[in-house]
Protein backbone atom coordinates (compact mmCIF):
# COMPACT_ATOMS: atom_id res chain seq x y z
CA UNK A 1 0.00 0.00 0.00
CA UNK A 2 1.38 3.36 -0.99
CA UNK A 3 0.68 6.77 0.54
CA UNK A 4 2.22 10.24 0.39
CA UNK A 5 2.71 10.24 4.14
CA UNK A 6 2.34 7.63 6.88
CA UNK A 7 1.70 8.92 10.39
CA UNK A 8 2.61 6.53 13.19
CA UNK A 9 0.51 7.26 16.26
CA UNK A 10 -3.08 8.44 16.68
CA UNK A 11 -2.75 10.85 19.59
CA UNK A 12 -2.93 14.62 19.49
CA UNK A 13 0.38 15.08 17.64
CA UNK A 14 -0.29 12.42 15.00
CA UNK A 15 -3.88 13.54 14.43
CA UNK A 16 -2.83 17.18 14.08
CA UNK A 17 -0.11 16.31 11.55
CA UNK A 18 -2.49 14.06 9.58
CA UNK A 19 -5.18 16.75 9.63
CA UNK A 20 -2.84 19.43 8.23
CA UNK A 21 -1.40 17.11 5.58
CA UNK A 22 -4.81 15.82 4.47
CA UNK A 23 -6.06 19.39 4.35
CA UNK A 24 -3.24 20.14 1.91
CA UNK A 25 -4.46 17.34 -0.36
CA UNK A 26 -1.92 14.69 0.63
CA UNK A 27 -2.79 11.01 0.68
CA UNK A 28 -2.28 10.14 4.33
CA UNK A 29 -2.44 6.90 6.32
CA UNK A 30 -2.50 6.94 10.11
CA UNK A 31 -1.80 4.02 12.45
CA UNK A 32 -3.45 4.36 15.85
CA UNK A 33 -2.63 1.64 18.35
CA UNK A 34 -5.67 1.80 20.56
CA UNK A 35 -7.94 4.72 21.27
CA UNK A 36 -5.95 7.72 22.39
CA UNK A 37 -6.62 9.01 25.87
CA UNK A 38 -6.79 12.48 24.43
CA UNK A 39 -9.42 11.51 21.87
CA UNK A 40 -11.46 9.88 24.61
CA UNK A 41 -11.37 12.77 27.04
CA UNK A 42 -11.09 15.93 24.99
CA UNK A 43 -12.45 14.81 21.63
CA UNK A 44 -13.22 17.96 19.67
CA UNK A 45 -15.09 17.46 16.37
CA UNK A 46 -18.84 17.95 16.23
CA UNK A 47 -21.06 17.36 19.27
CA UNK A 48 -22.86 14.73 17.19
CA UNK A 49 -19.69 12.75 16.56
CA UNK A 50 -18.80 13.12 20.23
CA UNK A 51 -22.10 11.61 21.32
CA UNK A 52 -21.82 8.73 18.90
CA UNK A 53 -18.26 7.55 18.90
CA UNK A 54 -15.42 7.96 21.33
CA UNK A 55 -13.12 7.90 18.32
CA UNK A 56 -14.09 11.47 17.43
CA UNK A 57 -10.70 12.70 16.18
CA UNK A 58 -10.03 9.52 14.18
CA UNK A 59 -13.55 9.55 12.71
CA UNK A 60 -13.11 13.18 11.68
CA UNK A 61 -9.83 12.26 9.95
CA UNK A 62 -11.51 9.37 8.12
CA UNK A 63 -14.16 11.80 6.90
CA UNK A 64 -11.35 13.98 5.54
CA UNK A 65 -9.98 11.09 3.50
CA UNK A 66 -7.22 9.89 5.83
CA UNK A 67 -6.90 6.09 5.85
CA UNK A 68 -7.05 5.27 9.55
CA UNK A 69 -5.84 1.90 10.83
CA UNK A 70 -7.42 1.52 14.27
CA UNK A 71 -5.81 -0.85 16.71
CA UNK A 72 -2.79 -1.38 14.50
CA UNK A 73 0.82 -0.34 14.98
CA UNK A 74 4.01 -0.17 12.97
CA UNK A 75 6.38 -2.88 14.14
CA UNK A 76 9.25 -2.84 11.67
CA UNK A 77 10.95 -0.45 9.26
CA UNK A 78 13.31 -0.90 6.32
CA UNK A 79 15.87 1.89 5.88
CA UNK A 80 18.03 2.56 2.83
CA UNK A 81 21.53 1.02 2.91
CA UNK A 82 23.15 4.23 4.17
CA UNK A 83 20.49 4.53 6.90
CA UNK A 84 19.38 7.99 5.79
CA UNK A 85 15.94 7.19 4.43
CA UNK A 86 12.87 5.16 5.43
CA UNK A 87 11.92 2.98 2.47
CA UNK A 88 8.95 1.05 3.86
CA UNK A 89 7.37 0.01 7.13
CA UNK A 90 5.29 -2.99 8.24
CA UNK A 91 2.39 -3.21 10.66
CA UNK A 92 1.29 -5.92 13.07
CA UNK A 93 -2.08 -6.50 11.39
CA UNK A 94 -1.04 -6.11 7.76
CA UNK A 95 1.86 -8.53 8.10
CA UNK A 96 4.09 -8.78 5.05
CA UNK A 97 2.21 -6.05 3.14
CA UNK A 98 4.82 -3.30 2.55
CA UNK A 99 3.66 0.19 3.52
CA UNK A 100 5.43 2.74 1.35
CA UNK A 101 5.39 6.54 1.67
CA UNK A 102 7.44 9.60 0.76
CA UNK A 103 7.65 10.74 4.35
CA UNK A 104 6.79 9.40 7.80
CA UNK A 105 5.76 11.03 11.07
CA UNK A 106 6.77 9.38 14.33
CA UNK A 107 4.17 10.44 16.90
CA UNK A 108 4.09 7.46 19.23
CA UNK A 109 4.26 9.33 22.54
CA UNK A 110 6.37 8.52 25.60
CA UNK A 111 6.38 5.70 28.15
CA UNK A 112 2.60 5.36 28.61
CA UNK A 113 1.99 4.59 24.94
CA UNK A 114 5.36 2.85 24.56
CA UNK A 115 6.75 5.40 22.08
CA UNK A 116 9.89 4.98 24.15
CA UNK A 117 10.50 2.04 26.44
CA UNK A 118 12.72 1.93 29.50
CA UNK A 119 14.58 -0.93 31.09
CA UNK A 120 17.18 -0.95 33.84
CA UNK A 121 20.03 -0.37 31.41
CA UNK A 122 18.53 2.40 29.33
CA UNK A 123 15.74 3.68 27.12
CA UNK A 124 15.00 2.76 23.50
CA UNK A 125 12.61 3.65 20.70
CA UNK A 126 10.99 0.42 19.47
CA UNK A 127 10.02 1.07 15.82
CA UNK A 128 13.18 2.51 14.27
CA UNK A 129 15.60 2.03 17.17
CA UNK A 130 16.24 5.77 16.87
CA UNK A 131 18.74 7.56 19.08
CA UNK A 132 17.19 8.37 22.45
CA UNK A 133 18.40 11.10 24.79
CA UNK A 134 18.39 9.87 28.36
CA UNK A 135 20.35 10.04 31.56
CA UNK A 136 22.71 7.03 31.62
CA UNK A 137 22.87 6.96 35.44
CA UNK A 138 19.65 5.21 36.44
CA UNK A 139 19.90 6.73 39.91
CA UNK A 140 19.33 10.19 38.42
CA UNK A 141 16.12 9.35 36.52
CA UNK A 142 13.86 10.34 39.37
CA UNK A 143 13.58 13.24 41.77
CA UNK A 144 12.54 11.93 45.18
CA UNK A 145 10.27 14.96 45.52
CA UNK A 146 7.17 13.50 43.87
CA UNK A 147 5.89 16.91 42.77
CA UNK A 148 9.16 18.14 41.29
CA UNK A 149 9.71 17.92 37.52
CA UNK A 150 11.00 14.40 36.87
CA UNK A 151 14.17 14.01 34.80
CA UNK A 152 12.75 10.99 32.96
CA UNK A 153 10.05 13.23 31.50
CA UNK A 154 12.74 14.82 29.33
CA UNK A 155 13.82 11.55 27.73
CA UNK A 156 12.88 11.11 24.07
CA UNK A 157 14.16 10.72 20.52
CA UNK A 158 16.93 12.93 19.22
CA UNK A 159 16.15 15.12 16.19
CA UNK A 160 17.80 17.78 14.06
CA UNK A 161 16.48 21.35 13.93
CA UNK A 162 13.87 20.37 11.30
CA UNK A 163 12.51 17.66 13.61
CA UNK A 164 14.02 14.78 11.65
CA UNK A 165 14.84 11.68 13.63
CA UNK A 166 18.48 10.66 14.11
CA UNK A 167 19.65 7.06 14.24
CA UNK A 168 23.24 6.06 14.94
CA UNK A 169 24.21 9.70 14.39
CA UNK A 170 22.71 9.74 10.89
CA UNK A 171 19.78 12.02 10.08
CA UNK A 172 16.87 10.07 8.57
CA UNK A 173 15.76 12.56 5.93
CA UNK A 174 12.08 11.56 5.63
CA UNK A 175 11.20 10.69 9.23
CA UNK A 176 9.85 13.53 11.39
CA UNK A 177 9.11 13.25 15.11
CA UNK A 178 6.23 15.08 16.74
CA UNK A 179 4.69 15.28 20.19
CA UNK A 180 5.79 13.65 23.42
CA UNK A 181 8.19 11.22 21.75
CA UNK A 182 10.57 14.18 21.33
CA UNK A 183 13.39 14.71 23.79
CA UNK A 184 13.23 17.86 25.89
CA UNK A 185 10.78 19.72 28.11
CA UNK A 186 7.46 17.87 28.45
CA UNK A 187 4.92 19.51 26.14
CA UNK A 188 1.53 21.01 26.94
CA UNK A 189 -1.42 20.13 24.68
CA UNK A 190 -0.75 23.31 22.73
CA UNK A 191 2.91 22.33 22.44
CA UNK A 192 1.99 18.87 21.17
CA UNK A 193 -0.40 20.31 18.59
CA UNK A 194 2.14 22.83 17.35
CA UNK A 195 4.84 20.15 17.05
CA UNK A 196 2.41 18.08 14.94
CA UNK A 197 1.72 21.09 12.79
CA UNK A 198 5.45 21.87 12.51
CA UNK A 199 6.21 18.33 11.32
CA UNK A 200 3.48 18.63 8.69
CA UNK A 201 4.85 21.99 7.50
CA UNK A 202 8.41 20.63 7.23
CA UNK A 203 7.12 17.66 5.24
CA UNK A 204 5.17 19.89 2.86
CA UNK A 205 8.32 21.97 2.26
CA UNK A 206 10.33 18.96 1.18
CA UNK A 207 8.12 16.02 0.20
Amino acid at each position, binding site marked *: *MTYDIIVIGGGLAGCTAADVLAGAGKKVALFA*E*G*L*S*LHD*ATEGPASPKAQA*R*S*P*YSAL*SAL*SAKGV*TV*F*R*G*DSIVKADLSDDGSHVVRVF*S*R*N*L*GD*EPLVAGAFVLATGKF*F*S*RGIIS*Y*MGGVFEPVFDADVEFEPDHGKWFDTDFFAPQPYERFGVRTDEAGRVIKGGIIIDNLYAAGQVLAGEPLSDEGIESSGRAAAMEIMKKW
Partner: protein
Amino acid sequence: MQEKSISTANLEQCLKCNLCTLVCPMLAVNEQYPGPKKAGPDGERYRIKDPEYYDYALKYCLNCKRCEVACPSGVKIGDMIQTARIKYGSQSKIRGLHGLRDWTLASTDFVGGMTASPIAPVANAVLKTGVAKAVLHGTLGVDRHRTFPAYSSEKFENWFRKEALEAQAGFEKKVSFFHGCYANYNYPQLGKDFVKVVNAAGYGVELLEREKCCGIALMSNGFAAKAAKQGRINLESIRKAAGPVLTVSSSCTHMMREEYPEVLGLPNEDVKDRIMLLSRWLYPRLESGEVKLNFRKDFHMKVAYHTSCHMQRMGWQEFTLGILRKIPGLELTVLEPYCCGISGTFGFKKENYGYSQKIGELLFSEIREAKAKAGDSAPFVVATECETCKWQIEMSTGITVMNPVSIIAQALDSE
Protein backbone atom coordinates in the same frame (compact mmCIF):
# COMPACT_ATOMS: atom_id res chain seq x y z
CA MET B 1 12.53 -6.58 35.30
CA GLN B 2 9.54 -8.45 34.06
CA GLU B 3 10.02 -8.75 30.30
CA LYS B 4 6.84 -10.58 29.50
CA SER B 5 3.46 -11.00 31.01
CA ILE B 6 3.38 -14.18 33.11
CA SER B 7 -0.36 -14.66 32.78
CA THR B 8 -2.15 -15.32 29.52
CA ALA B 9 -3.67 -12.48 27.53
CA ASN B 10 -1.27 -9.83 28.89
CA LEU B 11 -3.20 -9.35 32.14
CA GLU B 12 -0.44 -7.37 33.85
CA GLN B 13 -0.20 -4.84 31.04
CA CYS B 14 -3.60 -3.37 31.94
CA LEU B 15 -3.14 0.22 33.14
CA LYS B 16 -6.79 0.58 34.24
CA CYS B 17 -7.26 3.45 31.78
CA ASN B 18 -10.83 2.39 30.99
CA LEU B 19 -10.63 3.13 27.26
CA CYS B 20 -12.10 -0.35 26.67
CA THR B 21 -15.02 0.54 28.95
CA LEU B 22 -15.68 3.58 26.80
CA VAL B 23 -15.98 1.65 23.52
CA CYS B 24 -17.89 -1.41 24.75
CA PRO B 25 -21.17 -1.57 22.83
CA MET B 26 -22.85 -3.85 25.39
CA LEU B 27 -22.04 -1.69 28.39
CA ALA B 28 -23.66 1.28 26.65
CA VAL B 29 -27.05 -0.44 26.65
CA ASN B 30 -26.93 -2.93 29.52
CA GLU B 31 -25.94 -1.93 33.03
CA GLN B 32 -25.94 -5.54 34.24
CA TYR B 33 -22.79 -6.11 32.22
CA PRO B 34 -19.67 -5.21 34.20
CA GLY B 35 -17.81 -3.94 31.11
CA PRO B 36 -14.57 -5.19 29.58
CA LYS B 37 -12.16 -3.90 32.21
CA LYS B 38 -14.07 -5.37 35.14
CA ALA B 39 -15.04 -8.54 33.29
CA GLY B 40 -11.56 -8.96 31.83
CA PRO B 41 -8.34 -7.99 33.63
CA ASP B 42 -9.96 -6.87 36.93
CA GLY B 43 -12.15 -9.93 37.28
CA GLU B 44 -9.34 -12.24 36.20
CA ARG B 45 -7.24 -11.29 39.24
CA TYR B 46 -10.07 -12.43 41.49
CA ARG B 47 -10.83 -15.55 39.44
CA ILE B 48 -7.20 -16.65 39.66
CA LYS B 49 -7.55 -16.42 43.45
CA ASP B 50 -10.92 -18.17 43.61
CA PRO B 51 -13.15 -19.35 40.75
CA GLU B 52 -16.14 -18.50 42.97
CA TYR B 53 -15.67 -14.91 41.87
CA TYR B 54 -16.85 -15.83 38.35
CA ASP B 55 -19.69 -13.52 37.36
CA TYR B 56 -22.42 -14.96 35.17
CA ALA B 57 -23.01 -11.50 33.67
CA LEU B 58 -19.98 -12.29 31.48
CA LYS B 59 -22.47 -14.06 29.21
CA TYR B 60 -23.37 -10.60 27.89
CA CYS B 61 -19.94 -10.17 26.25
CA LEU B 62 -20.51 -9.99 22.49
CA ASN B 63 -16.94 -11.08 21.79
CA CYS B 64 -16.72 -8.16 19.36
CA LYS B 65 -13.11 -7.45 20.43
CA ARG B 66 -13.66 -3.70 20.23
CA CYS B 67 -12.05 -3.52 23.68
CA GLU B 68 -8.89 -5.05 22.22
CA VAL B 69 -8.89 -2.60 19.29
CA ALA B 70 -9.13 0.31 21.76
CA CYS B 71 -6.55 -1.02 24.24
CA PRO B 72 -3.29 0.96 24.03
CA SER B 73 -1.42 -1.74 25.94
CA GLY B 74 -2.14 -4.87 23.92
CA VAL B 75 -4.22 -6.60 26.60
CA LYS B 76 -6.34 -9.36 25.07
CA ILE B 77 -9.42 -8.41 27.03
CA GLY B 78 -11.95 -10.21 24.85
CA ASP B 79 -9.93 -13.42 24.81
CA MET B 80 -9.68 -13.26 28.60
CA ILE B 81 -13.46 -12.99 28.94
CA GLN B 82 -14.09 -15.84 26.49
CA THR B 83 -11.57 -18.03 28.28
CA ALA B 84 -13.18 -17.28 31.65
CA ARG B 85 -16.60 -18.23 30.27
CA ILE B 86 -15.21 -21.55 29.12
CA LYS B 87 -13.22 -22.21 32.28
CA TYR B 88 -15.72 -21.10 34.90
CA GLY B 89 -19.10 -20.91 33.21
CA SER B 90 -21.32 -23.96 32.88
CA GLN B 91 -20.24 -26.11 29.97
CA SER B 92 -21.59 -28.59 27.49
CA LYS B 93 -24.85 -29.47 29.18
CA ILE B 94 -28.03 -29.22 27.20
CA ARG B 95 -30.26 -28.17 30.09
CA GLY B 96 -33.90 -27.41 29.42
CA LEU B 97 -35.34 -25.81 26.34
CA HIS B 98 -32.94 -22.86 26.27
CA GLY B 99 -30.05 -25.33 26.41
CA LEU B 100 -31.56 -27.18 23.48
CA ARG B 101 -31.94 -23.88 21.64
CA ASP B 102 -28.31 -22.94 22.26
CA TRP B 103 -27.21 -26.34 21.02
CA THR B 104 -29.38 -26.03 17.90
CA LEU B 105 -28.11 -22.52 17.12
CA ALA B 106 -24.52 -23.60 17.67
CA SER B 107 -24.60 -26.86 15.72
CA THR B 108 -24.37 -25.33 12.27
CA ASP B 109 -22.96 -28.47 10.66
CA PHE B 110 -25.63 -30.78 12.08
CA VAL B 111 -28.62 -28.54 11.41
CA GLY B 112 -27.25 -27.29 8.08
CA GLY B 113 -26.35 -30.79 6.95
CA MET B 114 -29.89 -31.97 7.66
CA THR B 115 -31.67 -28.98 6.19
CA ALA B 116 -29.56 -28.00 3.17
CA SER B 117 -31.12 -30.70 1.05
CA PRO B 118 -34.23 -31.18 -1.08
CA ILE B 119 -36.32 -30.58 2.06
CA ALA B 120 -34.94 -27.01 2.29
CA PRO B 121 -37.87 -25.27 0.55
CA VAL B 122 -40.31 -26.86 3.00
CA ALA B 123 -38.17 -26.03 6.03
CA ASN B 124 -37.68 -22.46 4.82
CA ALA B 125 -41.41 -21.97 4.23
CA VAL B 126 -42.30 -23.39 7.64
CA LEU B 127 -39.69 -21.31 9.50
CA LYS B 128 -41.00 -18.15 7.88
CA THR B 129 -44.56 -18.60 9.12
CA GLY B 130 -45.91 -16.65 12.06
CA VAL B 131 -46.98 -19.85 13.74
CA ALA B 132 -43.49 -21.39 13.63
CA LYS B 133 -41.99 -18.13 14.89
CA ALA B 134 -44.46 -17.93 17.75
CA VAL B 135 -43.75 -21.55 18.69
CA LEU B 136 -39.97 -21.03 18.58
CA HIS B 137 -40.32 -17.83 20.58
CA GLY B 138 -42.53 -19.41 23.22
CA THR B 139 -40.74 -22.72 23.60
CA LEU B 140 -37.09 -22.49 22.64
CA GLY B 141 -36.73 -18.75 23.13
CA VAL B 142 -35.67 -17.85 19.61
CA ASP B 143 -36.87 -14.29 19.19
CA ARG B 144 -39.96 -14.01 16.99
CA HIS B 145 -38.53 -11.01 15.08
CA ARG B 146 -35.79 -13.20 13.64
CA THR B 147 -36.04 -15.17 10.44
CA PHE B 148 -33.70 -18.09 10.11
CA PRO B 149 -31.41 -17.63 7.12
CA ALA B 150 -32.92 -19.68 4.31
CA TYR B 151 -31.33 -23.06 3.64
CA SER B 152 -30.21 -24.03 0.17
CA SER B 153 -31.58 -27.14 -1.48
CA GLU B 154 -28.06 -28.07 -2.57
CA LYS B 155 -24.88 -27.75 -0.55
CA PHE B 156 -22.02 -25.73 -2.06
CA GLU B 157 -19.72 -28.76 -1.70
CA ASN B 158 -22.05 -30.85 -3.86
CA TRP B 159 -22.34 -28.14 -6.50
CA PHE B 160 -18.56 -27.76 -6.56
CA ARG B 161 -17.93 -31.48 -7.09
CA LYS B 162 -20.56 -31.69 -9.82
CA GLU B 163 -20.12 -28.41 -11.67
CA ALA B 164 -16.73 -26.86 -10.96
CA LEU B 165 -14.21 -29.51 -9.98
CA GLU B 166 -13.34 -30.61 -13.48
CA ALA B 167 -12.54 -27.10 -14.70
CA GLN B 168 -10.12 -26.59 -11.77
CA ALA B 169 -7.74 -29.17 -13.22
CA GLY B 170 -6.93 -26.69 -16.00
CA PHE B 171 -5.19 -24.35 -13.56
CA GLU B 172 -1.55 -24.81 -12.75
CA LYS B 173 -1.61 -22.74 -9.56
CA LYS B 174 -4.15 -23.55 -6.86
CA VAL B 175 -5.58 -22.15 -3.65
CA SER B 176 -7.63 -23.99 -1.03
CA PHE B 177 -11.05 -22.74 -0.06
CA PHE B 178 -12.51 -22.86 3.45
CA HIS B 179 -16.09 -22.06 2.47
CA GLY B 180 -17.67 -21.93 5.94
CA CYS B 181 -21.20 -22.95 6.92
CA TYR B 182 -23.04 -20.00 5.42
CA ALA B 183 -21.73 -20.55 1.89
CA ASN B 184 -22.19 -24.30 2.19
CA TYR B 185 -25.69 -24.62 3.66
CA ASN B 186 -27.42 -21.28 3.20
CA TYR B 187 -26.01 -19.36 0.28
CA PRO B 188 -23.92 -21.44 -2.16
CA GLN B 189 -23.90 -18.46 -4.56
CA LEU B 190 -21.21 -16.92 -2.34
CA GLY B 191 -19.03 -20.00 -2.87
CA LYS B 192 -19.71 -19.90 -6.59
CA ASP B 193 -18.73 -16.21 -6.65
CA PHE B 194 -15.50 -17.09 -4.85
CA VAL B 195 -14.66 -19.73 -7.47
CA LYS B 196 -15.45 -17.25 -10.25
CA VAL B 197 -13.14 -14.57 -8.84
CA VAL B 198 -10.27 -16.95 -8.07
CA ASN B 199 -10.53 -18.56 -11.52
CA ALA B 200 -10.57 -15.11 -13.15
CA ALA B 201 -7.36 -14.39 -11.23
CA GLY B 202 -5.80 -17.41 -12.92
CA TYR B 203 -5.88 -19.79 -9.95
CA GLY B 204 -7.74 -23.06 -9.45
CA VAL B 205 -9.78 -23.88 -6.33
CA GLU B 206 -9.45 -26.95 -4.13
CA LEU B 207 -11.59 -27.88 -1.15
CA LEU B 208 -9.96 -29.04 2.07
CA GLU B 209 -9.80 -32.77 2.73
CA ARG B 210 -12.28 -32.26 5.58
CA GLU B 211 -13.98 -29.07 6.64
CA LYS B 212 -16.02 -28.63 9.82
CA CYS B 213 -17.72 -25.51 11.10
CA CYS B 214 -14.96 -23.27 12.54
CA GLY B 215 -16.73 -23.65 15.89
CA ILE B 216 -17.33 -20.01 16.79
CA ALA B 217 -21.02 -20.60 17.55
CA LEU B 218 -20.20 -23.64 19.68
CA MET B 219 -17.56 -21.72 21.59
CA SER B 220 -19.84 -18.79 22.39
CA ASN B 221 -22.72 -21.07 23.39
CA GLY B 222 -20.68 -22.99 25.93
CA PHE B 223 -19.68 -26.04 23.89
CA ALA B 224 -15.95 -25.40 23.91
CA ALA B 225 -14.83 -29.02 23.87
CA LYS B 226 -16.86 -29.68 20.73
CA ALA B 227 -15.51 -26.48 19.16
CA ALA B 228 -11.94 -27.59 19.90
CA LYS B 229 -12.62 -31.00 18.37
CA GLN B 230 -13.78 -29.35 15.15
CA GLY B 231 -10.87 -26.95 15.28
CA ARG B 232 -8.40 -29.83 15.40
CA ILE B 233 -10.01 -31.42 12.32
CA ASN B 234 -9.82 -28.11 10.42
CA LEU B 235 -6.19 -27.45 11.37
CA GLU B 236 -5.28 -30.99 10.37
CA SER B 237 -6.82 -30.46 6.91
CA ILE B 238 -5.20 -27.05 6.56
CA ARG B 239 -1.80 -28.58 7.36
CA LYS B 240 -2.32 -31.06 4.51
CA ALA B 241 -3.23 -28.31 2.02
CA ALA B 242 -0.17 -26.87 0.37
CA GLY B 243 -0.82 -23.21 -0.43
CA PRO B 244 -3.00 -20.45 0.96
CA VAL B 245 -6.34 -21.37 2.54
CA LEU B 246 -8.75 -18.63 1.57
CA THR B 247 -12.03 -17.69 3.22
CA VAL B 248 -15.05 -15.45 2.65
CA SER B 249 -16.23 -14.92 6.24
CA SER B 250 -14.41 -12.59 8.62
CA SER B 251 -15.62 -14.42 11.73
CA CYS B 252 -14.46 -17.91 10.63
CA THR B 253 -11.13 -16.37 9.66
CA HIS B 254 -10.68 -14.59 12.98
CA MET B 255 -11.73 -17.72 14.86
CA MET B 256 -9.20 -19.97 13.10
CA ARG B 257 -6.34 -17.47 13.24
CA GLU B 258 -6.78 -15.87 16.68
CA GLU B 259 -9.19 -17.81 18.87
CA TYR B 260 -7.99 -21.33 18.14
CA PRO B 261 -4.71 -20.63 19.95
CA GLU B 262 -5.82 -17.92 22.41
CA VAL B 263 -9.14 -19.31 23.61
CA LEU B 264 -9.32 -22.97 22.61
CA GLY B 265 -5.63 -23.74 23.18
CA LEU B 266 -5.05 -25.12 19.68
CA PRO B 267 -1.58 -24.12 18.42
CA ASN B 268 -1.74 -22.83 14.83
CA GLU B 269 1.56 -20.95 14.45
CA ASP B 270 2.66 -23.22 11.59
CA VAL B 271 -0.39 -22.47 9.42
CA LYS B 272 -1.78 -19.16 10.71
CA ASP B 273 -0.21 -17.00 8.01
CA ARG B 274 -1.79 -19.15 5.29
CA ILE B 275 -5.36 -18.67 6.56
CA MET B 276 -6.82 -15.46 5.16
CA LEU B 277 -9.74 -13.77 3.50
CA LEU B 278 -9.78 -13.72 -0.28
CA SER B 279 -9.20 -9.94 -0.34
CA ARG B 280 -6.09 -10.23 1.88
CA TRP B 281 -4.64 -12.61 -0.70
CA LEU B 282 -5.92 -10.89 -3.83
CA TYR B 283 -5.12 -7.23 -3.18
CA PRO B 284 -1.30 -7.53 -3.05
CA ARG B 285 -1.40 -9.65 -6.23
CA LEU B 286 -3.43 -7.03 -8.07
CA GLU B 287 -1.03 -4.35 -6.86
CA SER B 288 2.07 -6.21 -7.96
CA GLY B 289 0.52 -6.95 -11.35
CA GLU B 290 0.76 -10.73 -10.87
CA VAL B 291 -3.01 -10.94 -11.20
CA LYS B 292 -5.13 -8.89 -13.56
CA LEU B 293 -8.92 -8.71 -13.40
CA ASN B 294 -11.07 -7.29 -16.17
CA PHE B 295 -14.12 -5.42 -14.97
CA ARG B 296 -17.29 -4.66 -16.87
CA LYS B 297 -17.62 -1.17 -18.32
CA ASP B 298 -21.35 -1.02 -17.61
CA PHE B 299 -21.22 -1.82 -13.88
CA HIS B 300 -22.99 0.63 -11.58
CA MET B 301 -23.36 0.21 -7.85
CA LYS B 302 -23.24 2.37 -4.73
CA VAL B 303 -21.59 0.49 -1.92
CA ALA B 304 -21.46 1.41 1.77
CA TYR B 305 -18.80 -0.74 3.45
CA HIS B 306 -19.44 -1.95 7.00
CA THR B 307 -16.36 -3.10 8.90
CA SER B 308 -17.52 -6.11 10.91
CA CYS B 309 -16.13 -6.42 14.43
CA HIS B 310 -13.79 -9.29 13.63
CA MET B 311 -12.64 -7.59 10.42
CA GLN B 312 -11.84 -4.53 12.50
CA ARG B 313 -9.88 -6.66 14.96
CA MET B 314 -7.85 -8.22 12.13
CA GLY B 315 -7.41 -4.75 10.61
CA TRP B 316 -7.75 -5.94 7.02
CA GLN B 317 -10.50 -3.70 5.67
CA GLU B 318 -8.08 -1.76 3.44
CA PHE B 319 -7.42 -4.93 1.41
CA THR B 320 -11.12 -5.21 0.58
CA LEU B 321 -11.59 -1.48 0.06
CA GLY B 322 -8.50 -1.39 -2.15
CA ILE B 323 -10.07 -3.94 -4.50
CA LEU B 324 -13.50 -2.29 -4.48
CA ARG B 325 -11.89 1.03 -5.41
CA LYS B 326 -10.46 -0.57 -8.54
CA ILE B 327 -13.94 -1.40 -9.87
CA PRO B 328 -15.08 1.23 -12.37
CA GLY B 329 -18.64 2.37 -11.78
CA LEU B 330 -18.54 1.47 -8.10
CA GLU B 331 -19.10 4.39 -5.76
CA LEU B 332 -17.73 3.61 -2.31
CA THR B 333 -18.46 5.05 1.13
CA VAL B 334 -17.03 3.65 4.34
CA LEU B 335 -19.36 3.55 7.33
CA GLU B 336 -18.21 4.39 10.85
CA PRO B 337 -17.31 0.97 12.27
CA TYR B 338 -20.10 0.44 14.81
CA CYS B 339 -21.14 -3.00 16.02
CA CYS B 340 -24.38 -4.22 14.41
CA GLY B 341 -25.38 -5.86 17.68
CA ILE B 342 -26.24 -9.39 16.60
CA SER B 343 -23.00 -11.08 17.61
CA GLY B 344 -23.63 -14.38 15.86
CA THR B 345 -26.27 -16.40 17.68
CA PHE B 346 -26.52 -13.93 20.60
CA GLY B 347 -29.17 -11.76 18.98
CA PHE B 348 -31.33 -14.74 18.02
CA LYS B 349 -32.17 -15.36 21.67
CA LYS B 350 -35.28 -13.61 22.85
CA GLU B 351 -33.68 -12.37 26.07
CA ASN B 352 -30.99 -10.58 24.02
CA TYR B 353 -33.05 -9.22 21.14
CA GLY B 354 -33.62 -5.81 22.76
CA TYR B 355 -29.91 -5.29 23.47
CA SER B 356 -29.00 -6.30 19.93
CA GLN B 357 -31.31 -3.78 18.34
CA LYS B 358 -30.30 -0.97 20.69
CA ILE B 359 -26.61 -1.56 19.96
CA GLY B 360 -27.20 -1.73 16.22
CA GLU B 361 -29.19 1.49 16.02
CA LEU B 362 -26.06 3.67 15.58
CA LEU B 363 -25.05 1.59 12.58
CA PHE B 364 -28.57 1.40 11.14
CA SER B 365 -28.94 5.19 11.20
CA GLU B 366 -25.51 5.57 9.49
CA ILE B 367 -26.72 3.19 6.80
CA ARG B 368 -30.05 4.98 6.33
CA GLU B 369 -28.20 8.29 6.03
CA ALA B 370 -25.78 6.81 3.48
CA LYS B 371 -28.68 5.46 1.45
CA ALA B 372 -30.49 8.80 1.50
CA LYS B 373 -27.31 10.54 0.35
CA ALA B 374 -26.69 7.96 -2.39
CA GLY B 375 -29.96 8.67 -4.20
CA ASP B 376 -31.30 6.08 -6.59
CA SER B 377 -29.22 6.51 -9.75
CA ALA B 378 -27.65 3.10 -9.07
CA PRO B 379 -28.44 0.15 -6.78
CA PHE B 380 -27.37 0.77 -3.18
CA VAL B 381 -25.97 -2.10 -1.14
CA VAL B 382 -24.10 -2.52 2.12
CA ALA B 383 -20.97 -4.65 1.85
CA THR B 384 -19.53 -6.67 4.72
CA GLU B 385 -17.62 -9.92 5.18
CA CYS B 386 -19.78 -11.11 8.08
CA GLU B 387 -22.91 -13.17 7.43
CA THR B 388 -24.56 -12.49 10.76
CA CYS B 389 -24.07 -8.72 10.28
CA LYS B 390 -25.80 -9.28 6.95
CA TRP B 391 -28.88 -10.86 8.57
CA GLN B 392 -29.03 -8.17 11.21
CA ILE B 393 -28.68 -5.23 8.80
CA GLU B 394 -31.13 -6.68 6.29
CA MET B 395 -33.71 -7.40 8.98
CA SER B 396 -33.31 -4.01 10.65
CA THR B 397 -33.01 -1.70 7.62
CA GLY B 398 -34.47 -3.65 4.72
CA ILE B 399 -31.35 -2.81 2.69
CA THR B 400 -29.54 -5.53 0.73
CA VAL B 401 -26.19 -6.63 2.14
CA MET B 402 -23.58 -8.38 0.00
CA ASN B 403 -20.26 -10.02 0.67
CA PRO B 404 -17.55 -8.02 -1.20
CA VAL B 405 -16.58 -11.26 -2.97
CA SER B 406 -20.02 -11.33 -4.63
CA ILE B 407 -19.71 -7.67 -5.64
CA ILE B 408 -16.32 -8.37 -7.25
CA ALA B 409 -17.79 -11.41 -9.04
CA GLN B 410 -20.69 -9.38 -10.39
CA ALA B 411 -18.37 -6.64 -11.62
CA LEU B 412 -16.11 -9.06 -13.50
CA ASP B 413 -16.18 -9.00 -17.26
CA SER B 414 -16.49 -12.69 -17.96
CA GLU B 415 -16.21 -12.37 -21.74
